[in-house]
């Protein structure tokens, strides 16, 4: 995935209608007409959204000139997931180490109290 493609993916995902279109396509391929129906939008309006999704590599269009069914392309979403995964790993490792530091701080906070109890 090129940097430009990633920008395009994020720009495409920023729109709720386009996310809904992707959610619909996750269930199976669909034509423009089939996609326009549930969104109460004109076919040209849906076509505009599809063009954005296609440029972002999020969907592909079939060759059939009449129907040109849309298909979800998983690759860009996978790339974003990979990036999120790297971030998650950084914080997971950090927080696991933080658990140990907090345990020590708790013991330090409890220590003086214990001393008092003894005397």
């Amino acid at each position, binding site marked *: 995935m090129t*940097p430009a493609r990633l920008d395009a993916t994020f720009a495409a995902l920023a729109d709720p209608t386009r996310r809904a279109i992707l959610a619909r396509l996750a269930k199976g391929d669909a034509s423009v007409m089939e996609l326009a129906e549930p969104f109460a939008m004109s076919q040209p309006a849906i076509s505009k959204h599809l063009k954005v999704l296609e440029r972002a590599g999020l969907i592909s269009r079939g060759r059939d000139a009449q129907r040109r069914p849309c298909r979800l392309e998983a690759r860009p979403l996978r790339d974003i997931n990979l990036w999120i995964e790297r971030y998650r790993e950084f*914080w997971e490792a*950090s927080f*696991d180490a*933080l658990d140990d*530091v907090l345990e020590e701080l708790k013991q330090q906070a409890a220590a003086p109290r214990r001393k008092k109890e003894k005397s």
Partner: protein
Amino acid sequence: MSKLKVLSGAPNEIVMERVFDAPRSLVIKAMTTPELIKRWLGGVRTTVLTAEVDYRVGGSYRYVFRTHDGYQFQFTGVYREVSDERVVHTEKMDDNPGEAVVTTRLTEANGKTTLHMVMAFDTDEVRDMVFGTGMADGAGESYDKLDELLAQS
């Protein structure tokens, strides 16, 4: 199973939640004291070489890391909001043009603290995180593409 929960947010956001078995005051202490930060941030395979923290509104911080395989990078940023319940700070990796805005909420109940962290990235930041540094050459082209897309939608 992982203790860290990654929740869904806006497409440019990462939302995480984690419960710590310690009161909030200790969590804040561990997150803002340089000697303590050095012991946990990045985990066991990443060394914090430098931790400078000026924990107040308008104050800045700087962390320099080295991973176990020798890769060095730094996070810098400014605290925009500082309170026990909510901390907002910016985060910039190395000299990348983009920065993230990180909003941390800390809630204490029964001696445990729930940390809820939202990292909102701008597109520059996302690109840098995904592709690392040295991608400046492609930046102009990608801005053009983005403008094109935004104009169409």
